[in-house]
Every structure is written in C-alpha cells, then in structure tokens.
C-alpha cells in the first residue's frame, strides 16, 4: 500500500446523529469513512471491504458491540483489525465488566461522555 492511499475506517452506531458526529470529528483525518447503522450492516461491509479500524458503539439493539467484536475476532482475516469501542455503557454492571474484559485485551476502549 502506498503512503498516500486512504484507509477505510468503519463506524458503527445505531443512532444516526452519533454517526454524523463521528463523521464530523474524523473528517480531518482525510481517510475514507464508512458508516453502518447496525452490527449486521457492519459485518456485511467487512465481508466485502478491507477495513483498517472498526469504531463501534457498545450498546446497540439486536447485536451489541461485544457480540460483534467476538464474531469479528474469530475470523482469521480480522484477527489484527483494530477495534475501538465507544461506550456509554454502565461499567458498574458486573456482567458488562466481565464481557468487556474478555475482549478488551485485543481491543481499545473509548468512553462516550454523556
């Protein structure tokens, strides 16, 4: 890959307003930003596109970020893909903590404020 080739950043959130704000924040990176409104849509994009970083919301209906990270990680093609969680999830909840710790050693975590 040449140095000036753009990489794909996949942003996953069920709330369109959040996707828009990530878009506004990340636009200055000058990379190629791809939006997905659900885990399902994100997986479909991953199957067809090379993605450098997945930025995703933890709490989403149907398939949440934890489940998605597990599915992505078990695939040999995505074992080294960077996954960054954006979380407003309540980390005082024990169940969430244990699920988080199982995937966190391979993923980054970014706290969503408010």
């Amino acid at each position: 890959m040449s140095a000036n080739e753009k990489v794909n950043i996949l942003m996953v959130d069920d709330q369109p307003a959040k996707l828009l704000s990530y878009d506004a924040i990340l636009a200055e990176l000058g990379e190629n930003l791809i939006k997905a409104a659900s885990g399902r849509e994100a997986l479909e994009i991953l199957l067809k596109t090379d993605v450098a970083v997945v930025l995703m919301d933890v709490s989403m209906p149907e398939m949440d970020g934890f489940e998605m990270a597990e599915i992505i990680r078990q695939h040999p093609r995505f074992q080294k893909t960077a996954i960054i969680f954006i979380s407003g999830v309540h980390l005082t909840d024990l169940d969430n903590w244990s699920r988080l710790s199982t995937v966190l050693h391979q993923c980054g975590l970014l706290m969503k404020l408010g």
Partner: protein
Amino acid sequence: MLERLHRSDEALVGRKVLVVDDDVRNIFALSSVLERRGMIVLTAGTGREAIATLETTPDVAIVLMDIMMPEMDGYETMQVISQNVSFRRLPIIALIAKAMKGDREKCLEAGASEYLAKPVNTEQLLSALRMWLHR
C-alpha cells in the same frame, strides 16, 4: 498427527466455496472455519445473488446453501442452479435448521448433493467438503 491433518486439508486448500445465507452472522462463522482451512470464500446473502455469483465465477468448486431464506429459498435456488448444464457437476451442500421429516428428500430432489443440519458441526462439515471436493 499434524502431517495427517495437513494432508486431509489438501482437498480444501485454494478451492473456491460459495456460502449462501441470509444471516450475515452465519456467513461470518462459516467463512472463519473455511478460510482457516485455506479455502477461498465467496459469499451471497440471497438466492439471486448466489446465482449471479456462480454465473460470473466459473471456478467455484462447491456451494454451501442455507435453505430458509426470504424471497427465494434454498430449494428454489438449487433448482435454478441445477437447471443450468454448466453447473451439473457442482456439488451443493444444503444446510437446514429445524430439520423435519422429508426435508432430506426435498433437498436431494431440488439438486443438493448432501444435507447437513444447523447448527453446523464443524468436523461434519469439513468431512463432507473433503469428500465432495476429493472426487
């Protein structure tokens, strides 16, 4: 042991498999297993997409077909595929959830080479693939 494992995967390495399922989670899980064994995985989320992929990719060696799909189900898709003479020798493994009596016959009649129950047992799937790809 390792050598034997390696040898048994010779039938799989580099071969093209088309995975047809409307649930992207199943596609992900299946392609994880198959790519780990060195197979080249193509995917389709609908029967129509599967047929289009087969028509444009002549070297697909085998198809894994989910039966329960909206719009065009696996039976219908397999019937269309088996009507095309150029796919006469293409093996199709049908995957079916909540298998009922008579489903097996229905699958074979529609053009499936073999039939496996969902959730798919990995070893069972791999030995079916080895068998059909070895011929």
